[in-house]
C-alpha cells in the first residue's frame, strides 16, 4: 500500500490540529530545517503521544526532518512541532544544518564534489 492510499494527516485538518495541539509549526521551522538531522536520545514510553513515540523509534540512527515527515506521513510543519516538543524534553538531538550563509563554504563544496565523484 502506498503512502497516498493511507492518507496523509494533511488531508485531515482536525487530526493535525489534535496532534500539534493547534500549533502551526512556523516558529519551530526556525529551529528545524528540512535537512536537520534528528537522533533519538531516549526510548519511547507507553504514555507518550503516539507520534512522539514513533519519532523516537525511527530516529535510532540519524534521519532528516523530511524523512521523518515521509515515514510518519505527516506534513513537515506538524513534524517540526512534534520535534520541538521532543527537543525541549531533551529526548532527541538535532544536528543543525549548515549555517545559512549567502554562499556555501568552499571546503563544504569540495567535500560534496568529492563525494559526488564516487556516485
Amino acid at each position, binding site marked *: 500500500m502506498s*503512502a497516498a492510499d493511507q492518507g*496523509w494527516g*494533511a*488531508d485531515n*485538518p482536525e*487530526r*493535525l490540529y489534535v496532534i500539534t495541539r493547534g*500549533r*502551526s509549526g*512556523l*516558529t519551530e*521551522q526556525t529551529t528545524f*530545517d*528540512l*535537512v536537520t*538531522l534528528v*537522533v533519538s536520545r531516549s526510548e*519511547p514510553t507507553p504514555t507518550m503521544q*503516539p*507520534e512522539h513515540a*514513533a519519532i523516537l*523509534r*525511527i*530516529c*535510532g*540512527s*540519524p*534521519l*532528516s526532518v*523530511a*524523512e521523518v*515527515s*515521509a*515515514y*510518519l*506521513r*505527516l*506534513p*513537515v*510543519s506538524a513534524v517540526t512541532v512534534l520535534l520541538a516538543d521532543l527537543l525541549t524534553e531533551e529526548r532527541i538531538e538535532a*544536528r543543525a*544544518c*549548515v549555517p*545559512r550563509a*549567502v*554562499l*556555501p*563554504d*568552499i571546503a*563544504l*563544496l*569540495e*567535500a*560534496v*564534489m*568529492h*563525494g*559526488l*565523484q564516487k*556516485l
Partner: protein
Amino acid sequence: MDFRSSEVVGPQGADLLPASATMAVKVVIVGGFGVGKTTLVGSVSEIRPLTTEETMTQAGASVDDTAGVERKTSTTVAMDFGRISISDELVLYVFGTPGQERFWFLWNGLFEGALGAVVLVDTRRLEVSFDVIGRLEDRGVPFVVAANTFPESPTHPTEELRAALDLPPEVPIVACDARSRESGRDVLMALMRYLYDLSAPPPPTTMPASR
C-alpha cells in the same frame, strides 16, 4: 486516534544513515510538470525516493503565527526527495517537486539554506521555465539549467537556449538524461562547480591545491 506508533515503519537496512552523520545539505530540482524531476531524483538517490508534504496558505494570504487555526484556503503540496551520502559525516538531500510551481516558493524553508537549485527544462516547452527562473533570480538562489533530453526534443545549441531563456552568460547550461545516474550526477556536479566559482575568490583560473 487512528495513528498507531507501531504502524510507522522507519528506514530499513541500506536506508539507515550511519550514526556518524552529523551534517546535511540540500539542493532543489525545479521545473515544469513532466520535465523529469522525479526521474532525476530517483536516478541519483541511494535510497528509494520518499515523499514529504506540506500544507500551505494560498499566495497572498497572511502567514503569521496566530493565523494557523482560521486558515481557510490551504493547499497540500507534495515533494519527492532522495539522499546521497557524501561522506561518513555529510549527507546531500535532493528535493524535486511534482508540478504546482507557484507553491514552491511558499514552502517555508525549502530554498532557505539550500546550496542551490537545478532548473530542469524540456526544450519542447521552454516557456514553463520562465516563471521559475525569474523567481530564483528574485530570491538570489544560485542555479544551473539542465536540458533533459527526450527523444523528440530538438537539440538547441547552448547559446540558443541561453538566449531563449534570457540567462546571463555565467549561468551554466548542461544537457542531461534524467534516467541516468551518471548524467544526473554530472548535473549536480555542474551546480557544485558553479557554486564553487561563485564562492571562490578571483581569479578563478587555477584549481585549489589538492589536500
